[in-house]
C-alpha cells in the first residue's frame, strides 16, 4: 500500500516536471552545429575565449594576447578584420591587468567582439557594408567602455567601494525588470541580512583569533 502511494506520488511529480521542463532542444548539438572551426586559424583563439569565460588567469590572458598578435599577419590584407583584432588586444590587456576587478562589461565586450570577428571572418557571402556595420557597433561599445573605465578610475575610494556591487538584477528579461512579490522581497531581505551578519561574525572571530595569536 505504502509502495503504491509512493509510486503514484513519483509518477505525479515526474509528469508535472516533464510538462514544465521539457527540453528537447537543449542539446550541445543544437548550439554548436555549424560552428566548427576545425581548420580555421581562429580555433585556438576561440578555445582561449571560452576558457576566459570560465576563469581569468594570467596564463590565459597572456595566451590570448599572444594569439591575437599571431593572427595579425594572417589578416593584414583585410583592414576590417584587422580592426577586430585591434579591438581585442587592448581589451585583453585591460582584463589581464585587472582580472577580477575589471568592469564586467569588458569581459562581455571581449566575448562580443570575438563572436562578431568569427562571424565576419567566416561569412564570405556577407556584404562588406554589413560587416562594416557590425564592426562599427563594436567600436562604439569599445569607446563607451573606455569612458566607463576612465570614469571608474576617476572616482574616489569611498564612492568606488560603494559601486563595487552591481545592483541586484533580473536575468533573462532583457532591459525589463520584473518586480518580485512583496513576500519574496521580504524573504530575500531577511536572507541577505542574515548572510551579511554571518559574514561579519566570521570576520570578527577571524580578527579575534588573529589578535589572540599576537
Amino acid at each position, binding site marked *: 500500500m505504502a509502495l503504491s502511494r509512493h509510486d503514484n*506520488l513519483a509518477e505525479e511529480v515526474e509528469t508535472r516536471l516533464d510538462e*514544465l521542463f521539457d527540453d528537447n532542444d537543449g542539446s550541445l548539438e543544437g548550439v554548436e552545429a555549424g560552428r566548427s572551426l576545425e581548420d580555421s586559424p581562429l*580555433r585556438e583563439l576561440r578555445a582561449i575565449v571560452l576558457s576566459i569565460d570560465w576563469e581569468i588567469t594570467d596564463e590565459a590572458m597572456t595566451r590570448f594576447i599572444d594569439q591575437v598578435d599571431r593572427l595579425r599577419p594572417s589578416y593584414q590584407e583585410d583592414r576590417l578584420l584587422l580592426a577586430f583584432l585591434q579591438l581585442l588586444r587592448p581589451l585583453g590587456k585591460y582584463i589581464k591587468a585587472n582580472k577580477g*576587478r575589471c568592469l564586467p562589461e569588458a569581459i562581455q565586450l571581449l566575448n562580443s567582439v570575438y563572436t562578431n570577428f568569427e562571424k565576419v571572418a567566416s561569412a564570405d557571402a556577407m556584404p562588406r557594408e554589413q560587416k562594416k556595420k557590425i564592426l562599427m557597433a563594436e567600436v562604439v561599445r569599445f569607446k563607451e567602455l573606455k569612458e566607463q573605465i576612465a570614469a571608474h578610475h576617476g572616482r574616489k575610494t569611498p564612492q568606488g567601494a560603494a559601486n563595487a556591487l552591481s545592483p541586484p538584477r533580473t536575468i533573462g528579461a532583457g532591459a525589463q525588470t520584473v518586480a518580485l512579490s512583496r513576500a519574496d522581497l521580504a524573504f530575500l531581505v531577511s536572507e541577505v541580512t542574515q548572510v551579511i551578519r554571518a559574514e561579519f561574525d566570521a570576520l570578527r572571530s577571524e580578527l579575534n583569533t588573529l589578535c589572540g595569536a599576537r
Partner: protein
Amino acid sequence: MAFVNLKKKEVQVKVVYYGPGRGGKTTNLEYIYSKFNHRIKTEMVAIKTHGDRTLFFDFLPFDIGKIKGYDVKIQLYTVPGQVKYNATRQLVLRGVDGVVFVADAMVVRKDKNIVALKNLQDNLAAHKKNIFTIPMVFQYNKMDLAAQGIPLLSYDALERSLNAQLKVPSFEASALTGKNVAQTLKKIVSLTIASLQKELV
C-alpha cells in the same frame, strides 16, 4: 526539512546548487530561468561582485502546482563557490532538502571538486544533515569544452573521484549550452519530493 504548512496545504522545497567556484552553478539557474521562464513564470535574483562572481547567493523560486493536494513551491539557490565565503555557504544550506553538486569536469579542477565536496559534507553536518542520506545529484559540468581541446576528466574518472561512495544519480552536462540542465533539475526535484513523501501522503 521542507517547510510544510498543513493549514494552507503548502510545501516549500529548498534545493541548493553547490560546488567549486566558477563551476557553473549560476549558469545552471540562468539557463533554467531563460529557457523555462515562460512556463514557470518567476524571477531570478542574482547578486554579484564586480568580476561577475556570486557574492551572496542566487535565488530562483517557482511553483510546480498541486501534488497530492499540496501546493508545491520549489526554491533553487546557489552558493558562492569561492573558499572565503564559507559562512554564506553554511547559511544557505540551512533547511536544505536536496543538493545538486555541480562539479567542474576540467582536469585542472579535480582537486577543487574534492575540496568543495568535503566542504559540503562539513557544512551539512553543521546543520545535523548527512551527505549520505540527503537527496543529491552530481552534475559534471563543462562537457562542451572537450570540443575546444581543453582536457577534461572522463565520466568514469569523475564518478571514481566524487561518487564512488555516495552512488547518487549523475549527469554529464554543459550549463552553458543547456545539456542535461533540465534533467539534473528534474532528478533532484523528484528525489527530494519522494524523500518528503511521509509529509505529503
